[in-house]
């Protein structure tokens, strides 16, 4: 009997399995810490979000496309930077982040309310549900009073330390360019030089067809590993395992 050769799918399945185990370890360890319940929930929800995104990819390798994959990576990166910053002073920073989030959501809810009234839109039930939730949160976190300093991701990364800042500098600009469809992204993927010599420097717009690149899952794994290290005392292995396996990708 011979071992089956590794396929991309089997490697990813094994990685996700290891990642799920690491999430459970992080959860157990975090719940044993003397943090407030909300702090534990926020830290682990941010980690759960990162793991969920990469799991959606793992089960659908078609999604490793340079058109959309960087957007998901950008979400993972921001969540990871928040984890790294939260862990510096968990309860205090959690309160700050939650207040900021709740205020931001309330502002959006108010704008939607005025829009619904002006346009007679049928979104009232959703707005009512959101307001109920905000009021229930207000009972526990007094987010409506006092000033809350806006959170800037670069600032959070800087405060979180050299390693987090290094990850920020490695990926943030590139991934944000994709998320915001900046000129860097548009000129790289959606314009090709015209073949007509009379057109000089003209570019011809082009639709970018979906492609796949394994590097995106490696980047995701590297960023998630940063969060895992922040939340566990034992060294996580899933990323280094994946890195060793995907040096010669077989998609």
């Amino acid at each position, binding site marked *: 009997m011979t071992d089956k050769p590794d396929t991309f799918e089997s490697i990813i399945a094994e990685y996700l399995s290891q990642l*799920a185990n690491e999430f459970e370890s992080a959860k157990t360890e975090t719940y044993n810490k003397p943090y407030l319940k909300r702090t534990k929930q*926020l830290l682990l*929800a941010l980690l759960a979000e990162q793991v969920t995104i990469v799991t959606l990819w793992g089960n659908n390798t078609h*999604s490793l496309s340079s058109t959309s994959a960087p957007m998901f990576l950008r979400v993972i990166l921001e969540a990871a930077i928040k984890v790294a910053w939260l862990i510096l002073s968990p309860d205090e920073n959690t309160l700050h982040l939650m207040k900021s989030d709740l205020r931001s959501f309330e502002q959006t809810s108010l704008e939607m309310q005025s*829009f619904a009234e002006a346009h007679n839109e049928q979104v009232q039930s959703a707005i009512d549900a959101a307001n109920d939730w905000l009021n229930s949160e207000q009972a526990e976190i007094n987010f409506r009073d006092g000033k809350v300093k806006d959170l800037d991701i670069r600032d959070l990364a800087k405060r979180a330390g050299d390693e987090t800042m290094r990850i920020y*500098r490695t990926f943030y600009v590139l991934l944000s360019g994709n998320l915001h469809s900046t000129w860097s*992204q548009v000129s790289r993927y*959606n314009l090709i030089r015209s073949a007509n010599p009379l057109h000089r420097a003209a570019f011809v717009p082009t639709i970018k067809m979906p492609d796949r690149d394994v590097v995106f899952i490696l980047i995701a794994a590297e960023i998630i590993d940063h969060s895992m290290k922040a939340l566990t005392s034992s060294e996580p292995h899933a990323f280094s395992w994946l890195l060793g396996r995907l040096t010669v990708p077989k998609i």
Partner: protein
Amino acid sequence: MTDIASLVEKLTDEISARFVARIRYWTPDLNILEAQNVIGGLLARICSLAIEFALSPYYWNAMCSQIILRSMVEAVINLGWIALEPVERAKLFVDYGLGQDKLDYEHLKAGNKTYSVSEETLNRIADGLAAQRHLIFTDVNVGTWSNISVAKMAAEAELASYALLFAGFCGTVHSNWLLLHDRFIRLSEDDTPQIPKSMPVNLGYLLMLATFVDQALEIYDAVCDYPETEEENLIDLVQRHD
């Protein structure tokens, strides 16, 4: 073929066909080349995102769809705002993008990243950037490309409802606590965060996608003087299948 599969095929074929028709009609004007590049490029970007989204049913859940659709909404707002003053605003758009590329290159050159590249690769990147504009003439802007908020751009471009969608979807992109709670804690039996086994699919996101492409085509047609067509709105095409 299922109804959904046939709808996706029809929708993606239509988006491609409408885009190609406009590009065939297009001729470069060397006096406003930058504006043409930006406007055509943004339309191509919106259509690329739309096609990829439509072809990927595993994106049709609240989390994934809001991340991609937010990007589409932002591109539509950018397109609408640039279309009001194409030459000046396209220049702002290009300047900002080149500055971001330069910033990323400088971090790579300074060894600030988790990986490094050879001297030869660095030179190749620098040459690529200099082909668009010499690096010493490229400013890095760490603010917003337009110097005003997305909401203000949307208001000026008469796309106020898009600004609201953008703000709504921002919660997902920036991991707002409300959405984290809703997706990873609310359904948990013991009130602890869980990784969901699946995420419900919502075909309503396809309707949004169709609306965004319709809007982008409308803006493009107006600013590029594309002849009036008898094309059925994509939103109507989707709703017929609904």
